[in-house]
């Protein structure tokens, strides 16, 4: 399976490199998209210096981690983002004609290399945040940061999977799913607690963003010493299960309606 994915990867890389000019233009565009958000944060903090109890550096740390998870998910799970068109142009029929798992094939169908621009920016902000936050680094805090990035990536990928699955039912995909993906990265730049109790509860129990962001962040910043918070990002990964079930139902429906 890994070898096969490697083959797909090299084909995607080769294809992308056929259009170098367009690739770099898109890379710049992708970088700009997240860079302007970063500029916006900077402007706000020049004026306000803090938001609730969080400093500029802490917000950058938070955004950096989220952006890393998001950009990796965007790069490798982007097949689901174009899944409605895969159904429309018959590409999914082709996938069903092949003796491999469907989810694997959709993942391998598209690798969006331009997200490297966003990933790099996430890394830069993370490093800056790490260096400038007054955090007493120890093993469990480092592990927590890693879990946050991984959990974020899995959570975003799960939402892309869900987004793609919805195309089985509506054919055009549902725009409101963007709220949970693009909305989460756009508004997840700030720790979720600033949006108030209601939003925090929603992001804890419905779409578990707070489990990869707010709670472990308070642990990393030393605002909480609850060791349970270290592992919450892993718990959030379970969100994949309901999304996968929706996918299965969708595939069954597709096979019975043919569209």
């Amino acid at each position, binding site marked *: 399976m890994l070898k096969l994915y490697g*083959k797909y990867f090299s084909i995607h890389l080769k294809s992308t490199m056929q259009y170098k000019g367009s690739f770099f233009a898109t890379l710049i565009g992708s970088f700009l998209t997240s860079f302007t958000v970063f500029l916006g944060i900077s402007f706000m903090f020049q004026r306000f210096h803090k938001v609730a109890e969080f400093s500029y550096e802490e917000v950058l740390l938070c955004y950096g981690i989220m952006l890393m998870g998001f950009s990796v998910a965007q790069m490798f799970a982007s097949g689901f983002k174009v899944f409605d068109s895969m159904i429309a142009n018959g590409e999914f029929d082709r996938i069903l*004609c092949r003796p491999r798992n469907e989810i694997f094939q959709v993942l391998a169908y598209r690798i969006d290399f331009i997200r490297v621009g966003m990933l790099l920016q996430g890394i830069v902000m993370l490093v800056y945040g790490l260096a400038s936050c007054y955090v007493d680094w120890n093993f469990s805090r480092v592990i927590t940061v890693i879990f946050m990035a991984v959990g974020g990536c899995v959570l975003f990928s799960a939402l892309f999977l869900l987004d793609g699955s919805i195309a089985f039912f509506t054919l055009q995909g549902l725009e409101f799913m963007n709220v949970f993906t693009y909305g989460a990265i756009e508004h997840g730049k700030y720790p979720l607690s600033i949006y108030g109790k209601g939003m925090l509860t929603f992001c804890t129990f419905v779409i578990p963003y707070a489990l990869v962001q707010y709670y472990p962040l308070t642990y990393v910043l030393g605002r909480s010493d609850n060791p349970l918070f270290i592992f919450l990002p892993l718990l959030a990964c379970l969100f994949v299960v309901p999304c996968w079930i929706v996918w299965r139902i969708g595939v069954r429906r597709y096979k019975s309606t043919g569209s």
Partner: protein
Amino acid sequence: MIEVQDLRKTFKVARREAGFGQAVKALFHREYTYVHALDGVSFRIGDGEMVGYIGPNGAGKSSTIKILSGILTPDSGKCLIDGRIPWKSRQKHVKEIGVVFGQRTQLWWDVPVVDSFELLKEIYAIPTEVYKKNVDQLTELLDLAQLLRTPARQLSLGQRMRCEIAGSLLHNPKILFLDEPTIGLDAVSKLAVRDFIKRLNQERHTTVLLTTHDMQDIEALASRILLIGKGKILLDGSLEDIRRGGSHIDETVAELYKKFDVT
């Protein structure tokens, strides 16, 4: 061996009427119509047979092919292909069949054709020696030597179709479904494709089921014809059976469509 018995499939289609008022109305309430794509289809195709599957647009051809390839589940009826139920054991089933959709491509647009082939080798887990042997053979038979190093986007339609067919045979499928393989091809490519399919059937004894609108394809290839219309098999026989006194094949078929009232 393909055995199909009393396959039925009904689709629910949202009705959409033209006009502004209708569009507003559809916001709140939608009406559906039911289309019987397959209305009790039965046939049997033996190993090594070559069968032409014809019928007007929307007659149920592609629904049948989709069911046989395991993409679509029928509402009722039986279908056994070499003992497998296609939609029940999808992954196992598709390893043994090849499918060519004439209007779509499985080749990667921007990389040389051989890269697409190597990807297929991994997808179907084809052993290296089998893969090599097949590529060599297919290259010779389909005259691909000049094409394998070229990106698919630079190939002509006919060249691409030859590569396409080669790609779906790399894993030695016992059964090949061809959905309009000669659509849009120039005369030379058409002949090459027909010639190849014929040889494939004779030399490898691959079972071929071919849908087409090109009656010359049928004339050149199929010893047996299945005619489907309005979801029913209307005729199952040889070309000689349906031909009436030397009239042109297109006219014969047009007459048949008219006779069964399926145009």
